[in-house]
């Protein structure tokens, strides 16, 4: 070592000797073998055997899921059994019935929070896979072995362990509080959702109103985040999102009014119950289920309005103005990192899942089977599969459409969606009169 340092010329000669000889290749010019062009695959991927295998695997998974659902059956009897056992066990310890109620409620809440935390993990992974396949990529492939299924869990862990930065000039309390204010309402709004027959954490009569009230509070968190970050881009994003969310709340709520008129109740279980049965059952055949989406004109109109407004409410492309990356860097959560950022993320995906669950229960008949002979599959499986299809639509839109401009967005809401939702209520009134 010291010798080479003493004689720089010899070390230079040595390192020169280590360098590879420059290769001046002269033709024939070939494409490097690892850069082959799979043009066939890009032009028509569905012709590949790999895609067919993937489709078969998906079908197998579906069958497995159906089998599992059949094995479990309706969840309500199991829950009743568990409740009875719990009552019995606690009565033997001499605890009063209110204590049982508390424990039972805590169990339900724990289950809901579990769903709320786990669902984004699954949906984000799924979104990454779907966006990857839309864009002719693979997406995560390594983490967890099978198609990177653990990727989002690992990402969540990473976010949890990251440094929690609060900008120096930020309003630190508001900055810290904002993610919670955004997340909690989205979580709380899950309570009255009816996941199947007699499967809701809180079967309250004003369920619909409650959900819309709670999701409305989320805006506050986003505004707080925008204001407290001490960043102009965040502020712009927060203000835009406040305007957008407050505006789209209206058509979204009014789109549900016809459903409420038909069902005659705000209770989600009763709205689902009103959609049981099939058109043409009286004549001995089942043409279409009595879902609200199949009510001529009114149903489709309110479904589309609700879908569009839901996409806008959850800040997804083509309405992701608040976090418009190309303009506002990333909008209201520019200055957020670590766990606080992941809370916003979870709130967004939770809100998306909630809108899909709501659409499934308002318009797609909740847990009711599309045709009578399919009624053997339990209701919660139907409900979840409908929600999953809707989530897929959300993801599909996101990776296909460009973003709308902020003033066009407002025009679209106030001049198009809102008048049509009013007209739709009138149609529903006519329908009921006839």
């Amino acid at each position, binding site marked *: 070592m010291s010798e080479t340092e003493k004689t720089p010329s010899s070390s230079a000669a040595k390192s020169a000797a280590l360098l590879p000889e420059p290769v001046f290749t002269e*033709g024939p*010019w070939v494409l490097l073998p690892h850069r082959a062009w799979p043009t066939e695959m890009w*032009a028509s991927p569905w012709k590949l055997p790999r895609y067919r295998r993937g489709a078969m695997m998906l079908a197998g998974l579906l069958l497995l899921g159906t089998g599992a659902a059949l094995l479990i059956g309706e969840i309500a009897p199991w829950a009743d059994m568990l409740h009875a056992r719990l009552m019995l066990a606690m009565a033997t310890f001499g605890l009063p019935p209110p204590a049982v109620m508390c424990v039972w409620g805590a169990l339900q809440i724990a289950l809901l929070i579990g769903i709320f935390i786990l669902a984004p993990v699954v949906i984000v992974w799924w979104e990454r896979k779907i966006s990857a396949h839309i864009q002719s990529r693979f997406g995560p492939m390594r983490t967890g072995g099978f198609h990177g299924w653990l990727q989002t869990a690992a990402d969540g862990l990473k976010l949890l362990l990251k440094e929690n930065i609060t900008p120096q000039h930020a309003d630190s309390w508001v900055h810290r509080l904002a993610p919670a204010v955004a997340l909690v309402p989205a979580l709380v709004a899950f309570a009255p959702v009816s996941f199947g027959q007699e499967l809701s954490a809180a079967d309250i009569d004003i369920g619909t109103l409650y959900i819309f009230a709670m999701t409305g509070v989320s805006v506050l968190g986003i505004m707080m985040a925008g204001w407290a970050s001490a960043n102009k881009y965040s502020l712009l994003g927060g203000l835009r999102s406040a305007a957008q969310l407050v505006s789209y709340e209206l058509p979204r709520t009014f789109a549900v009014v016809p459903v409420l008129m038909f069902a005659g109740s705000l209770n989600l279980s009763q709205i689902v119950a009103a959609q049981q049965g099939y058109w043409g059952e009286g004549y001995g055949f089942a043409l279409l289920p009595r879902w609200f989406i199949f009510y001529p004109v009114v149903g489709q109109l309110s479904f589309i309005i609700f879908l569009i407004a839901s996409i806008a409410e959850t800040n997804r492309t083509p309405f992701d103005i608040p976090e418009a990356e*190309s303009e506002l860097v990333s909008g209201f959560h520019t200055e957020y990192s670590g766990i606080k950022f992941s809370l916003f993320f979870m709130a967004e995906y939770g809100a998306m899942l909630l809108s899909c669950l709501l659409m499934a229960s308002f318009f797609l008949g909740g847990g009711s089977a599309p045709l009578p002979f399919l009624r053997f599959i339990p209701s919660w499986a139907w409900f979840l599969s409908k929600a999953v299809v809707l989530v897929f639509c959300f993801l599909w839109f996101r990776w296909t*459409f*460009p*973003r709308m401009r902020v003033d066009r967005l407002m025009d679209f809401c106030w001049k198009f969606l809102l008048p049509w939702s009013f007209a739709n209520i009138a149609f529903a009134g006519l329908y009921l009169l006839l």
Partner: protein
Amino acid sequence: MNTAPAPSRSELKTDQLFVNLGPQHPSTHGVLRVGLTIEGEIIVKAEPDIGYLHRGIEKLCETRSYGQCIVLSDRLDYCSAMTNNLAFCLAAEKLLGVHAPQRADALRVAMCELQRIASHLILLGTYGIDIGAFTPFLYAFREREMVMDLFEMVSGARLTYNYIRIGGVRADVDAQWVARTREFLEYFKPRLDEYDTLLSYNPIFIDRTRGVGVISAEKAADYGLSGPNLRASGPAYDARRAEPHCGYEKYPFDVITAESGDCWDRYHCRVREMRQSVRILEAVLDGLPGGEILAKVPKIVKPAPGESYAHVEGARGDLGVYLVSDGGPNPFRAHVRAPSFLNLSILQEIFLGQRMADAIAILGSLDIVLGEVDR
């Protein structure tokens, strides 16, 4: 920080806000900084601030031999290095009074058109991202990779090729390269329709770009715009037609123009230009002449004292190189007429009165490369 004038209380006016667009911003395409003064969402003042990528290339040319300057020209507009090489070599050839052989000319045309496709694909992808559509980016870069592969086959490099030499080109192509290029073209033609269905005619995309950032033909001429930015406003000026170089007069192609000069036209001019490039490429490959690829050029290039100017139609506009020789082995002075620089100059005028979101759309549609602006 900019000092905004204090708002008067009598008027219903909001505070002005100064926003830095860049130099580190997802959609400034490099290190451009634009100081925006906005009122709500409306831009009232825009100050482009350039120079973050200044490397003194023109000055460096004075200390390098002519052959070494080609390497520097690669770094000007790193998205279309081939056309930069060509512009520099044409200027040097004019000084020397040599002409490239026919085969070299054909290869130069082929490389420049491939480069135009690659460069326009970058715009197509990044413009989609600017507007909020992420997917076209991946498609565009997938196809661009194939062009990069073709360039790698002839020059060994994927970004800065240094392929075109004074008096010809560096290396010849063989039948396999030609076959590969044909394969690419066959694959690429239907993809152009795909882009149109995915992005160009998407109602939201049209809504975002139609009638936004309109540049009239007069204004475009006043500011010295060129390339697709000029042709989108109406004037059918194309250096390949106006002053054909490298035998462009032999190949069939249309000069693409549009009427309105808005963002959509500027974008779509480029998409249609890619079709014309495919036409030219097919013609070149069909009639590729044989022979030498490099004219007789002395090893040490020492042109007689004098000056020369050569310009080519680059992907971003009219790219010119001005060289002065004092008889020595290095250029006495080199200057580049960079199309991006002139295209950028119109920014502060057309930004006024636009919305913040439109500013991004306009900036993206101008298709600037900061390596060329700052030099």
